[in-house]
């Protein structure tokens, strides 16, 4: 019997993977989806945050065998035709240092804004408290979430991946940053 899980919108046959394998390692070692990161393995750091049926969850705590018929979204599935406003805000605010925790941070932040598009400062801190950043980028994460919140509320799709300058280069002038 094929065993299937929906990963980033695609029904994926995972029969070949041991069902007790945590989703984290199934994604990383078997599906080439390495954006979801291993940090602690005990749901303390948030580096492996994905969405399970739209809610943030720790992929290190989700045995694959319990996910039949469920829908998983990873950081690789967050962007549509354009970057998700949270991803775009992360670039605009130049949040990352090493960047290792940021996929998990972004998944937590995007989940927060999906249920509360205009969170208070306290609500942001509360929602993000499960994600550790050893480099200490918290002040930028706060700003990025606030600016993604504004963008979402004003309905602005402010990233066009077809733009030649940006498509040609992974870098972008920060002159726009206030």
């Amino acid at each position, binding site marked *: 019997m094929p065993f299937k899980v929906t990963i980033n919108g695609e029904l994926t046959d995972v029969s070949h993977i*041991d069902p007790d*394998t945590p989703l984290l*390692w*199934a994604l*990383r*070692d*078997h599906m*080439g*989806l*390495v*954006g979801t*990161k*291993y*940090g*602690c*393995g*005990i749901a*303390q*750091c948030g*580096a492996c945050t994905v969405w399970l049926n739209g809610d943030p969850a720790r992929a290190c705590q989700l045995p694959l065998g319990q996910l039949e018929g469920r829908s998983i979204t990873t*950081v690789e599935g*967050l962007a549509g035709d354009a*970057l998700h406003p949270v*991803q775009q805000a*992360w*670039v605009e605010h*130049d*949040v*990352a*240092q*090493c*960047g*290792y*925790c*940021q*996929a998990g941070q*972004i998944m937590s932040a995007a989940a927060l804004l999906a249920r509360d598009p205009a969170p208070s400062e306290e609500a942001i*801190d509360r929602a*993000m*408290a499960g*994600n*550790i*950043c*050893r*480099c*200490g*980028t*918290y*002040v*930028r994460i*706060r700003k990025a979430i606030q600016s993604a919140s504004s963008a979402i509320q004003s309905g602005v799709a402010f990233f066009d991946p077809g733009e030649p300058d940006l498509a*040609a*280069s*992974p*870098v*972008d*002038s*920060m*002159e726009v*940053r206030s």
Partner: protein
Amino acid sequence: MSAKEMKARFHRRQFLQFSGLGLALTAGGQVMQVVAADHSDTSTLSAYITVGRDGLITIGAPNPEVGQGVNTSLPMIIAEELDAAWRDVQVVNTPVDAAHYGAQFAGGSLSVPMRWDELRQVGATARAMLLQAASAEMGVPPAELSTLDSRVIHEASGRSLSYSELAHGASEVPLPDADSVALKSAEQYRLLGKRITNASAAAIAQGESLFGIDVQVPNMVYASYVKCPHIGGRPVSANLDEIKAQRGVIDAFILEGEPGPYQFDIRNSIKVSPGVAIVARDTWTAMRARKLLKVRWNTEPASGDDSEQIAAAAKAAVGRLEQATMISSAGDANQALLDAKTHSRAFYSADFVSHAQLEPQSCVAQVTAQSAEVWTSSQTPSAVDQLLPGLLSLPAEAVTIHSVRGGGGFGRRLSNEYVYEAALISQRVGLPVKVQWSREDDMAFDYFRSALYLDMEGGVSDEGRLAAWKLHVIAGSSDKEEANYGGTYRERDFPEKRVPNYNIATTLIPSQTPTGAWRAPFSNIYAFAEQSFLCELAAAAGRDYRDFLLDLLGEDEWFKDGDRNALNTARAKGVINAACAAAQWGRSLPEGRGLGLAFFFSHAGHVAEVAEVSVDADKRLIVHDVWVAADVGQVINLSGVENQIEGSVVDGLSAMADQRITIREGRIQETNFDTYPLLRMPKAPKIHVQMLASGYSPTGAGEPALPPLAPAVGNAVFAACGERIRELPISKAGFMV
């Protein structure tokens, strides 16, 4: 002194400093190399620069990127002198290749200062070659040409040519003489000093494969490597047959390695601790099999450290100066203490801490009988390049090292034992292997920040000035000869140079636990003790700490003649005044709330920080705001430097709050983030960063903003509630962040 001599001197000095850290590699890459004259669609202008016909300018980043931003800042230096439009630039990692790129490492906040002259020269030389090519193409002298945004412009005729049009011709121009190439002056900078987004920002935000842990190669298998929990022990036997019978397990075996705890030695060490390797079809299978592993360990060679006993030995050494080694002295400190108007003495201490970089160690190695290839997030790939051939008995040219982004470094990735583990396991199984440490492995087998104990005594004169200074540094040593890494007091000049009577002594106490470079080694603890204790002295004398500190710094001067990496008192006072002005130092605050100031000079950077803290009756403290003023010379990437400083503040608070490694019978007790807490977002203060433009050459920014944070917070706690914190973490004194 000519510019060339200055450069040689600078490199030599920096290397001497870094040699102290244990790495001695040849300095200075070849500045400029014309590699290939004719590619079908690109032209290579140097080992660093390739220009495509599509206009894309590819610039190589030579040093390991572990979050300190050098994949952006180093290419920016080239782009500035090249006059490349940053939007045209694509950054790639260069190969690990000493012949072209010199010593490639990330440590000591040295990447930018060590590459500064070289990379400016690289960019300016390539620009000169493009000008030469344009001159030939347009038939006008080079002096009539200028450059802007990836183009050469002939203003008189209004003609211009893009770098992509000129690159092929430029790659055939003879390499100009280094002295004929002019470098820009700071007023001419268009890119340096601006906020530029990290070159990998978009890739990070999309979860692309970037990190060492993300590397996958065909036919790769996965390994867990299990070492003795009592550091340095060795396996005698294990239930290997049972492990090998597990579904998905490919092999399990003992690696003999070298027993015994050993200290940080990246220059020479290819030692691998003995252990049991479990090789499996995926990471989880290896980790699952590991839970069934039963090993009989021989702990005879292991460390027997007990952190409580180490602390007790340190306390017992206090005051026993007859058994201490004198490091330096002047005048008569004892007499001056007797003569002083006020006199204070205090004992400061700090526990071991772990690096806890968020990406646990991993490495992919592919070793065959003829060759080896490794992918590593090491901070010292050049050391791997030098040492791995010997470990595997392969010729140097058969070994290839790929430097891959690391998920945090902080000094942890200066050592390379995980690389050597992966190489030996791959050699044994004949397949490419990814060795994956668990978080528990990473915490147990760290090169920790050393514990450190400081007995301090000082006296202030009738005029309110520091008149006597005594420092007794007590640190662990595995060989009774020198302190383990991070415990050695090195000549600092401040405050000694400003105190007529001082003496500094050290005592070594036995400790086997491996220690290493943890962000701003030694300074990370010493600054807490020095800046807290100076504040104590000021308070005892009834003086404001800012005034006391400014007086102590005294007249404007360099502390070492001719050394532009030394402390400069004008720069020091500059950052103190700027931080205090921003924080409105001296304003009155409600009860239970206070401001604390600290200044520290390390890694050639001058940094002052003011923290605003409130403390309640249960010793719960909130750090509301931290104002930072820093002078690290010419800023390369303003956004990157600000990010490093913001991160240093958070990291400093995280470490001082409640991080400690405890050791029993040579075994680390903390295992993961549930017992070793990192600061979380709700506790992060607001951080206000000012960079002072001092006009000096750039120095590094990854470390110098960390040391002042703990004393700034400690001094603010004193201002808020009158209690002086003298131990790290502060949770030991009952304080909770």
